[in-house]
């Protein structure tokens, strides 16, 4: 900034003196302050000028205000107030009116929900007005050249010519909105033509894509289109609307391939929840539901809350007071985590656990409870699969038709299975009914999935919980056992002593927790990202239910095992036969049969889903499914057909920093994205994803929305509809307006008006039509009228209660109180799975396995000697090191043998578990560049940037145990390199002299933190990663900031990021075709894969790393970081600090 701007600090000081009417300089003292020779008797009377007081008192004055919803992916969706002066938002504040939210029956929310807002909600205007906004549409120069050259089919040479393989080094050019839409439409048409038909398939096979992926396309080039509405629930219309655009691409397919509506295909809808690793993937295995989560105000009813890898203090900021209320009401808090975490400070006791051994802990607790008869036998018999008989020969549940001659099921068509849950004859035929040993008749008895709770009692059946029997099947004697009996065998491997060795928790502490669970009621277990981000989260999730199944802590206030990582709950807009299509009516309305009547009821919308869900995990795995060439069977496909991905050639995502948050991000940039022909992202800010895209489309922020948007949450009962209150600051558009713009351009290009008809009411400025249809046809909102809601009839304007059965909403309330079946094949909670995949992988029982990478023992080993666990190892040797071989290799060993095994990475010096939890100062990557948050988020926040090495006014940091650091010669505050398995990270094929390797290798500041165990280090999730441009800026700018030239992207790292160390893992148990469970957004059941429901859950924590010193922490890269020399930091305490820590200042 030059002086020609006319303003400097010196000028400022001078002008103040002039404006103040002069000053009273003291003789002999320099003129830099007032001389005070004596005290004023009355300072106020002596002040020369008091106008400043008016300014001071006036600073919070506003001339207008409006209500908006802060809707990041944190599950809260807080309605807030914005206060404006002259049309500019000057501050943001909470809205204290939650007690006014009502449903159609007059139920109202408790005022105790007030207030709801956190520091992110208070600083959002700093995002909106800040310097990092995406201000106008931009296109990558190389991509535009490719388009202007006529979209030639991309050979490797052309990909280099147009910089598809060097996106991070290309430049962006400004482009008008209409030109943007036109280019994108032509891009879609070109890509679909290139990859359609037999010629397209041949081209893809030639590029190296597996035949399974190409076959999955069905020769539709449009199947290479991938769309992702970034956590779509955060804006059902604008974000999820991208899937409606995708569905319309079937029109393009119909035109290009000349097929009818029955064969026309749109692209693939990319998942969100599972992609984030936020789902608890074990939940569908236990109860059939995507996720169990209660409203947060249910926490006050618990008497024992167990936070297992869950941080309700930092990650549920606005609603963490509910668990504090549990404490205030005399409840007990237990925290299970490797580190002494923020919630540990609130806990009655903390169990420091070895990472990823939670399943073993709960198995040990379960064994102790069974051994000591600490279980509710009636509940176990009525609601769990423990009394069901299992064949010991093939490990399948015994089916009634196998042992009862001429068996005819008495499952009623008017019972809950058919009438409420949407069970079908076809599904019943495939699954059959089940068998118990009836103690009343001393013989076998068939039970259906409706025979749960009191219903089985009314049938006069008294199921045996224990016993081994012999039955005749096809003339042969077959041994069967109750599952409970089998579990007693299974749990022999999990005595307290063994579990103590596996987990690192003292046996008496495990027993203490077991006794607490058995004697305190109600008990709730909360698992979060700390659990869900590990490869074997499935087993940890399943195991958490076992003690609750034994004690009946399900379906009642204050009880259950829940998780709320990510606002995923599209099921809040669930459809049903009695209400209509709900959410599906919006995202998957039949594009060939659109309802263009603005007065049509939501129930009249016809659904025609021509897209298919897909996990981004496949793109994140080299754009590949899980296929392994095994010694025993040769080519083996582990990805189920219901999950099978297609090649990725066009990628469009909105409201998500997809690449920044991608595991193995630098591999994506280097090895995967170069093969994608068009990447489009819509965002409000300049992100790393924009830097590596072909188009950056500026979207309006929540306070700039020009029409209505709707959201809700998985952790509270509030329906929220809102629009912005200020004009867009830049040349940005609402999300839906962007999507409609693309659709309109498609219509112009193809001549098919149905493209634009998909967004007819958006084009006409009547977005509310779509919202009313959604309200009409969803089970939780049917009956609401948009006009009433906006008039404030059910709460604040735009607010109301979702219509739940109970407030707070309690998962499985109907199952326990109304004897409805759980959403599983048996209708019961499952401690066992008999689907072929689970048996083959050795996970038919709930079991502890070591991680595929994050372990010191044999990767992926199953800890068991149970004869009823019979995994297939596919002949893969124990010393196989490839990530996919480790993924699928199933070897069973008892703990005494596991202890003697080794992980080759551990032996090579990769001896730190890298924990990457979410921070309180951002939501995923949002708020990463807000100056205050950058400073708050790390010990290296410094607005003055004394150390010019820092990338900005803050810098990301790595928490490390001081003793571990010292053993490596690392001082507090030093820069270190964090490296993972060199075979594939930071990207496949890297070489140390490759300039890109310097960009991609993680360099970060260390901070001593004694709260962490010796072998566990922590780097918070999703700061803004270093890119090629930010590194160049850091190395060439005079001030050293990592602020990209040309894009204005501000990184939080100097080099690399936490994603330098992570990779994607294709967990086989997440990819079955057989798991029977509830569909996520309709009252029906499905087998196998569904995005965000039963699909690959990414596991960023499955990472072992090494840490080596890179630079001294002191100024200029010399010596020790100054702060670490003050005597006030860990392991360098001076006498004063020691006195403080010893409580020496307390008198």
């Amino acid at each position, binding site marked *: 900034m030059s002086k020609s701007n006319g303003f400097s600090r*010196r000028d400022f000081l001078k002008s103040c003196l002039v404006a103040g009417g002069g000053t009273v300089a003291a003789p002999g*003292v320099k003129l830099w302050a007032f*001389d*005070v020779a004596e005290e004023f008797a009355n300072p106020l009377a002596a002040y020369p000028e008091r106008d400043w007081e008016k300014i001071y008192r006036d600073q919070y004055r506003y001339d207008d205000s409006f209500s908006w919803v802060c809707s990041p992916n944190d599950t809260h969706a807080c309605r807030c107030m914005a206060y404006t002066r002259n049309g500019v938002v000057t501050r943001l504040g909470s809205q204290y009116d939650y007690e006014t939210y009502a449903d159609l029956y007059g139920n109202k929310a408790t005022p105790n929900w007030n207030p709801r807002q956190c520091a992110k909600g208070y600083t959002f205007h700093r995002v909106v*007005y800040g*310097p990092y906004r995406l201000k106008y549409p931009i296109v990558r120069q190389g991509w535009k050249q490719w388009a202007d050259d006529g979209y030639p089919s991309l050979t490797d040479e052309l990909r280099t010519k147009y910089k598809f393989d060097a996106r991070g080094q290309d430049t962006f050019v400004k482009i008008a909105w209409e030109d943007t839409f036109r280019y994108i439409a032509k891009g879609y048409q070109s890509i679909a033509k290139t990859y359609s038909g037999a010629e397209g398939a041949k081209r893809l096979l030639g590029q190296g894509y597996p035949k399974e992926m190409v076959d999955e396309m069905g020769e539709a080039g449009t199947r290479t289109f991938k769309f992702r509405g970034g956590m779509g629930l955060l804006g059902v219309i604008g974000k999820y609307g991208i899937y409606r655009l995708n569905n319309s691409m079937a029109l393009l397919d119909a035109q290009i391939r000349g097929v009818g509506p029955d064969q026309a295909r749109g692209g693939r809808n990319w998942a969100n929840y599972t992609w984030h690793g936020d789902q608890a993937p074990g939940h569908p295995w236990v109860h059939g539901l995507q996720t169990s989560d209660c409203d947060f105000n249910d926490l006050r009813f618990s008497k024992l809350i167990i936070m297992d890898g869950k941080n309700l203090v930092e990650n549920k900021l606005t609603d963490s007071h509910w668990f504090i209320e549990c404490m205030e009401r005399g409840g007990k808090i237990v925290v299970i985590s490797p580190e002494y975490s923020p919630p540990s400070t609130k806990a009655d006791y903390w169990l420091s656990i070895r990472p990823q051994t939670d399943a073993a802990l709960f198995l040990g607790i379960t064994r102790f409870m069974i051994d000591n008869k600490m279980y509710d036998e009636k509940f176990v018999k009525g609601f769990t699969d423990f009394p069901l008989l299992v064949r010991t020969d093939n490990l399948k549940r015994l089916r009634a038709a196998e042992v009862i001659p001429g068996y005819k099921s008495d499952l009623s068509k008017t019972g809950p299975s058919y009438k409420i849950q949407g069970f079908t004859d076809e599904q019943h035929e495939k699954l059959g009914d089940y068998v118990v040993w009836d103690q009343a008749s001393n013989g076998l008895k068939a039970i259906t999935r409706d025979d749960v709770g009191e219903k089985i009692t009314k049938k006069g059946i008294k199921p045996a919980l224990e016993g081994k029997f012999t039955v005749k099947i096809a003339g042969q004697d077959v041994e069967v056992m109750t599952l409970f009996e089998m579990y007693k065998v299974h749990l022999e491997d999990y005595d307290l002593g063994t579990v103590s060795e596996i987990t690192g928790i003292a046996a008496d502490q495990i027993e203490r927790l077991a006794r607490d669970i058995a004697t305190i009621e109600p008990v709730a277990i909360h698992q979060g990202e700390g659990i869900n981000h590990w490869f074997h989260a499935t087993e940890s999730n399943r195991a958490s239910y076992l003690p609750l199944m034994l004690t009946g802590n399900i379906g009642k206030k204050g009880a259950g095992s829940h998780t709320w990582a990510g606002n995923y709950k599209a099921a809040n807009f669930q459809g049903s036969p009695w209400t209509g299509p709900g959410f599906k009516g919006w995202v998957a309305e039949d594009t060939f049969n659109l309802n263009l009547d603005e007065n049509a009821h939501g129930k009249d919308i016809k659904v025609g889903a021509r897209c298919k869900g897909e996990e981004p995990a496949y793109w994140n795995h080299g754009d590949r499914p899980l296929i392994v060439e095994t010694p025993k069977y040769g080519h083996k496909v582990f990805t189920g057909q219901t999950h099978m991905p297609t090649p990725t050639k066009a990628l469009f995502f909105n409201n998500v920093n997809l690449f920044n948050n991608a595991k193995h991000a630098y591999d994506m940039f280097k090895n995967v994205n170069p093969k994608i022909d068009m990447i489009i992202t819509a965002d409000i800010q300049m992100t790393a994803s924009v830097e590596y895209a072909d188009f950056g489309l500026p979207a309006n922020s929540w306070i700039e929305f020009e029409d209505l948007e709707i959201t809700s949450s998985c952790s509270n009962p509030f329906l929220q509809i809102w629009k912005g209150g200020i004009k867009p600051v830049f040349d940005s558009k609402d999300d839906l307006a962007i999507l409609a713009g693309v659709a309109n351009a498609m219509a112009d290009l193809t001549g098919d008006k149905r493209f634009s008809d998909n967004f007819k009411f958006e084009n006409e400025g009547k977005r509310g039509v779509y919202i009313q249809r959604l309200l009409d046809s969803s089970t939780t909102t049917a009956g609401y009228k948009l006009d009433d809601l906006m008039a404030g009839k059910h709460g604040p304007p735009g607010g109301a209660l979702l219509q739940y059965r109970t407030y707070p909403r309690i998962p499985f309330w109907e199952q326990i109180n109304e004897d409805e079946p759980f959403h599983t094949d048996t209708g019961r909670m499952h401690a066992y799975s008999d689907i072929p995949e689970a048996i083959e992988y050795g996970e038919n029982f709930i079991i502890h396995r070591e991680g595929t990478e994050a372990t010191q023992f044999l990767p992926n080993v199953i800890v068991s000697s149970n004869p009823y666990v019979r995994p297939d190892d596919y002949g893969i040797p124990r010393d196989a090191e490839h990530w996919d071989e480790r993924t699928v290799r199933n070897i069973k060993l008892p703990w005494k043998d596991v202890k003697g095994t080794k992980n080759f990475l551990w032996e090579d010096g990769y001896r730190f578990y890298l924990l990457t939890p979410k921070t309180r100062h951002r939501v995923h990557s949002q708020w990463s560049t807000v100056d205050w948050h950058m400073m708050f988020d790390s010990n290296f926040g410094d607005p*003055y940037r004394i150390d010019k090495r820092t990338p900005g006014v803050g810098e990301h940091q790595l928490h490390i145990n001081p003793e571990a650091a010292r053993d490596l010669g690392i001082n507090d505050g030093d820069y270190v390199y964090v490296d993972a398995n060199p075979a594939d990270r930071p990207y496949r094929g890297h070489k140390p002299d490759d300039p890109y390797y310097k960009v991609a290798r993680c360099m970060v500041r260390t901070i001593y933190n004694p709260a962490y165990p010796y072998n566990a280090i922590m780097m918070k999730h999703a700061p803004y990663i270093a890119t090629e441009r930010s590194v160049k800026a850091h190395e060439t700018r005079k001030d050293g900031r990592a602020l990209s030239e040309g894009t204005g992207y501000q990184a939080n790292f100097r080099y690399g990021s936490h994603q330098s160390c992570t990779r994607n893992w294709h967990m086989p148990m997440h990819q079955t075709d057989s798991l029977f469970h509830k569909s996520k957004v309709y009252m029906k059941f499905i087998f196998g894969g569904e995005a965000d429901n039963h699909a690959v859950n990414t596991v960023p924590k499955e990472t072992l790393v090494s840490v080596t010193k890179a630079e001294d922490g002191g100024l200029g890269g010399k010596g020790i970081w100054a702060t670490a020399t*003050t005597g*006030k930091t860990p392991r360098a305490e001076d006498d004063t600090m020691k006195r403080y820590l010893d409580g020496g200042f307390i008198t």
Partner: protein
Amino acid sequence: MPYREPDPEDPMQRVGVTIPVEDDSSCREMAECFAEEYARQGWNRRQLLEMFSSAFYSGPHLAWLQLGEEAVTEIVDQAVQMWKPMIDRQSENEKRTSNTIIDLPVIQT
């Protein structure tokens, strides 16, 4: 309006704007502001010097690094001279209200 780029003249601007630095005197002026601000709150000479020398106070510490101990000591001495009544009154208050000496708010180094 400041919607396009940060505008140093706009008091409504939401983002910190760098004040131009033309010569070394700017750093001294800033240091003088720090010294005066805290002296007026009653901090004594020792406390002020500790603030400047402590890495926890990054702004004053930056001045300490750039100007050196001698210059900062001179600034502190002048501030103490100017605001002596405030410092004395603070000391008296501490004596009246507490028998326990706790050297806060400056963290001892």
